[in-house]
């Protein structure tokens, strides 16, 4: 047995199982016990599921407490993951989302019983309209990608309503992978548009594609995935609209300009808003999020149903929308996340939301300035909320972005995003967010600078990193080649 081995290793919950332990007790059954063998045909029944674990309550608490300690999180420090907008997740929002009068409400209670829930959704829609300057918002989509799909389906419907069946969706090569995937699942064909030398939209290329007459929409991220504002966005919108197309904006980077500018003024027809980014609903180690879609007047007839409508001082769920795309998920949206997002908007208020964008942009530019001498900037346009370096300056020493990232773990920081945007080879996409103060940024900067030095002087340090984490680098090839995707009892 080696030192610390007990605390650094934690079995699978199944391996902890020990005969006769129980982790929970049900209320005493007061009604007669029905014997399923008597009430249900035996061929449809199963016995006990043998491999489910038998563990006590304390076993479970310890197991997940120990597991949690192997994670890095916003609550521990800067999480400069580009495109992800990792920001502070206020505890008050967690408290509010758990109010029994919100968390326990069943989605199929009659509307008279859920006026509070509907009021909350209505208020959030209004707030998102205020932020985006768009006509209306659907709160239904469960995440950004889901919002993209909903938006593209609305565009499809709008075209259909006009009797058109266009197939082409233009997407810059800097786009997030969900953009093309969502377009395809909405039944479109994707045409990738190469970015300009500045990394921005190639307007002439768009114009050329428009000539074909088959372009349903352009999907574009603003600011783009380099953190640069798309200079031609307004012109692109006009061109599209002229040719009967629509502009879909990926709103993942909305945090950069809340209170500064509005998609509604850019000619956007639909954008999703990742509430789990801009509006701070917790990422949860992979969700849940929420991806409301704000639309222009042109798409309002095609919103998913039901919508929340205010009628006098009452709220109703309305499905009276003949042009609707239908529903994109069960019920009305990730209501629990909507609660948190509205609480966040209320807490920050008008000025706080603007200062949020200010802070995000200030922090990104501060980091950019501090690291410009050490890391190469693939594109040098002015940054808004994030800055994308690459590993060119370290390439001579054989160092890749992943080595820098792993070494950063040894310094106690979460690394930047790496394999994205695809137009930057060896990207280090840094989005500090607005939550952090200068001392945390300075610490990150020192670590990055130390690593740049190490890359020159002792590259093996980076190649061997990380050494201070619960596990070292993993054999990812083995994971994919010999997939072990579940536990099974040893034979």
């Amino acid at each position, binding site marked *: 047995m080696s030192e610390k081995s007990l605390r650094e290793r934690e079995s699978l919950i199944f391996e902890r199982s020990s005969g006769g332990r129980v982790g929970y007790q049900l*209320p005493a059954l007061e009604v007669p016990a029905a014997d399923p063998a008597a009430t249900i045909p035996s061929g449809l029944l199963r016995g006990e599921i043998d491999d489910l674990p038998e563990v006590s309550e304390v076993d479970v608490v310890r197991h997940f407490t120990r597991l949690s*300690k*192997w994670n890095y999180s916003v609550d521990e420090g800067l999480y400069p993951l580009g495109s992800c907008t990792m920001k502070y997740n206020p505890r008050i929002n967690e408290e509010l989302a758990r109010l029994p009068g919100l968390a326990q409400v069943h989605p199929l209670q009659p509307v008279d019983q859920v006026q509070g829930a509907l009021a909350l959704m209505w208020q959030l829609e209004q707030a998102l309209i205020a932020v985006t300057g768009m006509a209306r918002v659907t709160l239904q989509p469960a995440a950004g990608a889901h919002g993209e799909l909903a938006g593209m389906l609305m565009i499809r419907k709008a075209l259909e309503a006009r009797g058109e069946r266009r197939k082409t969706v233009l997407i810059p090569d800097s786009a997030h992978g969900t953009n093309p995937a969502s377009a395809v699942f909405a039944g479109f064909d994707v045409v990738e548009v190469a970015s300009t030398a500045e990394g921005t939209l190639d307007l002439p290329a768009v114009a050329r594609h428009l000539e074909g007459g088959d372009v349903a929409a352009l999907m574009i991220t603003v600011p783009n995935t380099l953190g640069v504002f798309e*200079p031609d966005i307004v012109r692109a919108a006009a061109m599209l609209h002229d040719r009967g197309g629509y502009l879909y904006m990926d709103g993942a980077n909305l945090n950069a300009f809340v209170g500064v500018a509005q998609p509604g003024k850019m000619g956007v027809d639909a954008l999703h808003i990742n509430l789990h980014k801009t509006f701070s609903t917790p990422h*949860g180690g992979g*969700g849940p999020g929420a991806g409301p879609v704000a639309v222009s007047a042109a798409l309002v007839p095609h919103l998913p149903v039901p919508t929340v409508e205010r009628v006098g001082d009452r709220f109703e769920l309305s499905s009276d929308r003949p042009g609707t795309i239908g529903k994109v998920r069960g019920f009305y949206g990730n209501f629990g996340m909507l609660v948190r997002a509205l609480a966040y908007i209320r807490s920050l208020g008008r000025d706080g939301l603007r200062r949020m964008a200010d802070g995000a942009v200030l922090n990104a530019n501060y980091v950019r300035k501090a690291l410009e001498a050490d890391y190469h900037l693939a594109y040098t346009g002015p940054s808004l909320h994030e800055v994308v370096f690459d590993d060119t300056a370290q390439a001579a020493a054989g160092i890749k972005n992943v080595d820098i990232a792993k070494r950063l773990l040894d310094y106690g920081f979460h690394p930047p995003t790496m394999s994205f945007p695809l137009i930057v080879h060896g990207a280090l996409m840094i989005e500090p967010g607005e939550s952090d103060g200068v001392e945390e940024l300075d610490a990150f900067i020192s670590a990055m600078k130390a690593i740049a030095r190490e890359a020159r002087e002792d590259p093996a340090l980076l190649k061997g990193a990380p050494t201070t984490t619960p596990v070292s680098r993993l054999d*990812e090839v083995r994971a994919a080649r010999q997939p072990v*995707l579940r536990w099974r009892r040893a034979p």
Partner: protein
Amino acid sequence: MHRYHAGERDRLAMLESIGAASVDELFATIPPEVRCGPLDLPPARSEEEVRREFWSYATKNAEPECFASFLGAGVYRHVVPSVADALIQRGEFFTAYTPYQPEVSQGTLQAIFEFQTYVCQLTELDVANASLYDGATAVVEAVLMAQRMLPARGRVVVAGALHPEFRAVLDTYAAPMGMSVTAVATGADGRVDAAGLAAALGPDVCAVVVQSPNFLGVIEDLPAIGAAAKSAGALAIHAVAEATSLGILAPGGRFGFDVVCGELQAFGIPPSFGGPHLGFFATRQDNLRQLPGRLCGQTVDTQGRRAFVLTLSTREQHIRRGRATSNICTNHGLIALFATIVLSLLGKRGVREVATASHSTAEYLKAGVRSLGSGVRLAFPDTPTYNEFLLLHDDPDGLLARLQSEGVLGGVSTTAFPGALPRGILVAATEKNSRQECDRLLDALRRLS
């Protein structure tokens, strides 16, 4: 300054180091024509003020916990161990991102691996993903997978008693993907009509979707349906809306189904007015490369220690982009963690007990209804159900309103749903419904129906 942001001293120091005179300067690339004035929103509110606003929303809802509640129809009120919510509130879990850096995400990753295992155990299938948004989208993903696997077949057959929400979402996705949906009528016994199914099948059918227990609470004859689908060369998909049923009912996996998928909300996830809930998806090993969503796999680190990592991501949008098996990115990770904790606590014994207690309570109610002799009757008196059943009544909404005034949320009215459902009330029972609550419902039904 705001409590969520850094202070003025920081701002000044940083501007100086950047060499900018003001933060506004940093926004210079945003053209004037898209700029906006101050947002039309109230000023920053204190915690106290925000609490007041949200308390007021909360009190304007009727909270099922304050009633004898028999609401179900896809969202169920089972026991929620206190431990689960306490643990997911650890900052290390809920403020982390998707575990892209495995060296500092082993906690999340191991929990996903355990979640996948639970789903495989419940479904008797080989592989399961790390979660999907909800039951409805899980069913859609299953159908889309079938379409990818059988691209020449453009039709999907669904049981008529598929949850209307699942069905509605499937309709939304199917048409743009060039698929048509055929529903099989529900027989007089509340189950898929075998002849109807046979008639609906054909060489153009890529998948057969059946929910069991179905939307009317009835347990379907999965072996027969699975066999019919197979013989037509289609994928058989078992949709689950009440996942605790898997504590006593054999899953599609046992009967050769290709996919078992749906909603795990029943394992203690708060109803939360419809979300976030928890979509799950399990399939056979053969279909692994077609699986939608994230997967966590076991491997070793450079020192040979067991460790976990997201894997097979060439299926996913961030690598495969337009040819990915799904567009999903953010999934429902924290809810999957919650369910993993609940399943760990329930364990071998509890998973079964929840199912038998829920079933017993529903059987008690059904027996009670049988002897009521009043204005309600069982829609399918002779067909086995799990924990939910349909009570026929001419004016379900009126009846429910009368029940509510006596402190009973008697169930969900079928009039709320599109399609030709019989008029009545879906009544769901779980281990949380005491005998006294059941008796209150029965007594009120006797007097008021």
